[in-house]
C-alpha cells in the first residue's frame, strides 16, 4: 500500500547551553586533589612561582598580606573544581626560626578560591584523579 504524501519538511533544532554544565566551572572537571606535598610533621614556606610569599613564616623578608604563616600537608583528598584557584609555586621546609631550609620543592597550590593552602608535588594535572569530568 502506498503512503500518503506530505510536504517535505526538516525542522532544525539548535542546541542551547545547559545551565547545569555552565555552573560547574569552565570545564566542569572536579579533581580529587591530594594535599600531600611534604612531611605531615613539618611546616613549610610556600611561594608562588614568581616568588610572592603565599604561606610563609614572614621571616623571609618578603612579607605578604595574604600570608598564611606556614603550610603543613593534611594528607586528605579534597574535591576541587577546576576553576577554584590552582597556582604554580614552590616551597621550602621551615627551620627553627621559620627560615627556608633544604631543597626547593616545586608544587601546585590549591587555594580553594584563595582562602586556604593545599599543595601537591604531582605537577601533571592530567594525572590527577577526577571526581567528575
Amino acid at each position, binding site marked *: 500500500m*502506498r*503512503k*500518503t*504524501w*506530505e*510536504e*517535505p*519538511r*526538516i*525542522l*532544525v*533544532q*539548535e*542546541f542551547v547551553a545547559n545551565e547545569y554544565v555552565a555552573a560547574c566551572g569552565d570545564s566542569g572537571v572536579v579533581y580529587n586533589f591530594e594535599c600531600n606535598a611534604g612531611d605531615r610533621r613539618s611546616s613549610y614556606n610556600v611561594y608562588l612561582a614568581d616568588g610572592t610569599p603565599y604561606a610563609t613564616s614572614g621571616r623571609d623578608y618578603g612579607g605578604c598580606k595574604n600570608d598564611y604563616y606556614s603550610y603543613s600537608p593534611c594528607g586528605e583528598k579534597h574535591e576541587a573544581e577546576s576553576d577554584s584557584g590552582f597556582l604554580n609555586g614552590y616551597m621550602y621546609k621551615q627551620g627553627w626560626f621559620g627560615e627556608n631550609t633544604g631543597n626547593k620543592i616545586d608544587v601546585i597550590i590549591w587555594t580553594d578560591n584563595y582562602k586556604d593552602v593545599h599543595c601537591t608535588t604531582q605537577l601533571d594535572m592530567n594525572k590527577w584523579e577526577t571526581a567528575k569530568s
Partner: protein
Amino acid sequence: MNENMKLEFPFTDNSGELSGDKLDEHLKNDNNTEENKRYRIRSGYILREIAGEFAIIPVDEESLITNAVMAPNDTAVFLWKAFLYPSTIEDVVKKGMQEYDATEETIRNATYRFVEETLRYRILEEVV
C-alpha cells in the same frame, strides 16, 4: 526556416551543427540539461533512526548548519535517502510515485523545492 537564421542553445553542446530530429535526440541525451543533473547529499551529514524517529546530524565543521540536529518528516527522509546516491530529480520522482499515493506533479514540485533549498544550504551537491 531562413537559412541565415541560426538557432543557438547557449547551455548545450551543438558543435556538430545538428537540427531537426537529430537535434531533439541530442538534447535528450545532453548531460547538461536540468533533467540530467545528478545530485547527492554531501558527506558531512549522518541520518539515523532513533526510537522510530529520524534525525540528521551535521558532523562537518564546514556545514552551514552547526550545533544542531535536524528532524525530517517522512517525505523528507524519503528524499534524503533517495539522494544519498547520485540521482536525477526524475529518478527520485519515479521512486516517489512507486512509494507514495500522490500525483507526479506534486512529487516533482516538492522534489524541485527540496533540491533548491538543500543546494542553498550546501547540504546537497551536484555530481559532475
